[in-house]
């Protein structure tokens, strides 16, 4: 890998079609910086994205990438990483992709703890379909399909992750560029599943969870005495619905990745041109 990789090397020449001011610009720039700072390069990086505004991220970046079906980015990313553990793998999605249609995969990806990062661009709305409630929308958030609000509590993805045995749980804010990039980098470098919920405001359809809202309400844990390795302290922050936190909330420093547990350490693309040398032993097992 090259040591003089710049974050712009991860940028493609395709212009984003996100709305001007969309939080996803900041989210993507932070991911590119985090990748460059973590020492990888585009030819050794694999981006996986699902469907929605967030799903377009791979198109605007330069790396190996797949833009898959709705909600399934996490199993794809795990498959990539297990087949070639040398790659840096980042999955990206939105709150609909990750916590609604893909919610089942989310808790299992957390449990599995494959060494990868997962950044969720959480704008608390369905943007690409023009403004319907998402699983993180507020209970009284009025939309075209929920005129009186969803009348259901929003999903707490951080709590889901903690309950599923998450080893790295963080939250960032798309326009807090420096902190966001630092947090994503830490998620990439974490030995296991590095999960970052990124507040990534939708300027077109969400007039509640706005930049101003987050600026006014966000508490950066770096400015507090929070110890991310303290499970109980993390639990308290995660279940505290009175505030929005930014920073690494929980980190299990003894985390062992799935690959390490199972001894998966080879680039599986390397295979011989015929059956393995001792393959007749497989046949003889059936005597």
């Amino acid at each position, binding site marked *: 890998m090259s040591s003089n990789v710049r974050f712009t090397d991860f940028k493609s020449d395709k212009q984003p079609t996100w709305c001007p001011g969309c939080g996803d610009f900041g989210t993507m720039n932070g991911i590119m910086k985090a990748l460059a700072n973590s020492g990888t390069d585009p030819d050794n990086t694999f981006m996986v994205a699902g469907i929605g505004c967030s799903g377009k991220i791979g198109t605007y970046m330069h790396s*190996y990438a797949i833009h898959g079906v709705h909600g399934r980015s996490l199993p794809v990313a795990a498959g990539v990483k297990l087949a070639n553990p040398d*790659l840096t793998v980042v999955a990206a999605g939105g709150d609909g992709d990750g916590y609604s249609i893909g919610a089942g995969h989310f808790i299992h990806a957390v449990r599995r703890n494959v060494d990868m990062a997962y950044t969720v661009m959480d704008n608390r709305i369905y943007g690409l379909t023009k403004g319907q409630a998402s699983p993180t929308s507020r209970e009284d958030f009025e939309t075209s399909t929920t005129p009186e609000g969803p009348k259901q509590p929003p999903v707490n993805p951080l709590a889901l992750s903690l309950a599923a045995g998450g080893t790295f749980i963080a939250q960032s804010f798309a326009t807090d560029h420096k902190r966001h990039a630092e947090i994503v980098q830490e998620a990439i470098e974490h030995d296991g599943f590095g999960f970052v919920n990124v507040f990534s405001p939708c300027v077109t359809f969400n007039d509640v969870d706005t930049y101003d809202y987050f600026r006014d309400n966000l508490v950066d844990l770096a400015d507090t005495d929070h110890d991310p390795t303290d499970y109980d302290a993390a639990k308290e922050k995660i279940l505290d619905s009175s505030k929005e936190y930014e920073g690494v909330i929980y980190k299990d420093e003894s985390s062992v990745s799935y690959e390490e547990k199972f001894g998966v350490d080879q680039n599986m693309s390397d295979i011989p041109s015929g*059956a393995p040398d001792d393959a007749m032993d497989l046949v003889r097992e*059936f005597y």
Partner: protein
Amino acid sequence: MPADFNWAIGGEAGDGIDSTGKIFAQALSRAGRHVFTSKDFASRIRGGYTAYKVRTAIDPVQSVVDRLDVLIALTQRTIDENLDELHEGSVIIYDGDRSTMADVEIPEGMVGLDIPLKALAEEAGGAIMRNVVALGAACAVADFPIENLDSALQKRFGGKGEAIVENNKKAARAGLEYVHDEYDHEFDYDLETTDEDYVLINGDQAIGMGAIAAGCRFYAGYPITPATDVMEYLTGRIERYGGHVVQAEDELAAINLALGAARAGARSMTATSGPGIDLMTETFGLVATSETPLVIVDVMRSGPSTGMPTKQEQGDLNMMLYGGHGEIPRFVVAPTSIDECFWKTVEAFNFAEKYQVPVYVAADLAMAVTEQTFSPEAFDMDEVEIDRGKVVDDDSIDEWLDEEGRFQPHALTDDGVSPRAFPGTEQGAHMSTGLEHDELGRRTEDRSMRVEQVDKRDRKVETAKETEDFSPREFGDADSDTLILSWGSNEGALVEALDFLEADGIDVRFLSVPYMFPRPDLTEEIEAADEVIVVECNATGQFANVVEHDTLTRVKRINKYDGVRFKADELADEIKATLDAEEVSA
């Protein structure tokens, strides 16, 4: 037609029917006899009716027949379920002391051997060995050297310690001796042995072994009858070759895990049954449009919905050929026998990578859970060839870069196949997407590029038709006016049915078709025949419909969808009836 011997053990699920049957099959195989097994089983852990049947002969056997010579019955229901197959002189071994058999009724003309299986097992070291006592008794009835059973017991229990093996051998002898001492009946059987070495393998295992041989290094799946054996086979074996098996949270995840591994350059596979294919269909189009090589095994079972999960059916052909929204180029290969499960899996991986397509391996329950004996040479690993298609490396990638130095994973080529760069290849970074895309893999709605990419993907199928050999397997009399067509596991029963028909003076030509798409053009063969009969295990004749569509000719059909595979003798009768009906109407 082989001089065969047909044996079964039946009882309730939880009675150890499967493992006991397997031990007897193994003993016969180790004695140099050919074996073909079948199972009647229920989707439950305990209770119900379950049976394991073994057909054996000196010559190869590849089907079940409607006859049972010796039956070990642990329940009355076992006898009732098999009345049609039992015949005059059939021997029924049972334990009259067992509550389920207290009021046993041995049908007239049959020989009942009441053996205190449990008591004898307890004497030998434990009631758990009562089925082994019954196996010993079966050896006495069949005049089969018990040393072969010892060998199978050693294989089955060797890992549990020598004492367990010895107790089991003792239990077997107790059964043998009980028959010798208590019954002076002359049994007609004499199971000879040979010096041949055979392997005893089922279709799921053959698929798993084929995958490893073909260089598959990644497998993701979700347990489902009757495909689970594929995953169980690979687990613990694929790791020896640097591979890995992931048990996914569902089939949606399984196919996406497998897709991810394939994008990273691994030969990758998933296996499931119809309900899993339903879920995987969501991602199937992405696999095809991103031109990702992937092998998807569908071990068909009876549907729709949960259907009859442990019963045979070939009802998923339409889904494999047409499933998914939009128009999806795909390959469907359909092994026609257990050894072909191995070879077709190898071929499926080569097709997948040469043409960068999803490839279905269409297997079915009847071959997946059936064990059959083969010479080891049937799986000659030296014959396995791996063709990875158009893979570029750090050097050869240059010719596939555009003027701005960008790699073109969907380059428009004459044969439709584009270059493939594994992640880590320098200058190879590129986008793959389920969106329509340009040569760089980036989203486009440009009308001419859309048409060019669709045509390019379809061109791969045309290239394969020109390059590959999709011939059917030919059996019977090539000059006959009667042509039988079939696919999947029916081959074995049909091949043996030809013998029954020949004995009745009826010659037919049988083509067993292992490629469902791309598939052979059978127009010539069909035009040359007066009668064409398509045999398959479904109600609507899915393959027959395809044949009619391809050749613009109406065909006769023999369909079976009662959940049970074709039997050779029964099939011969059905073919005769179909031909007779034709004569009458003519």
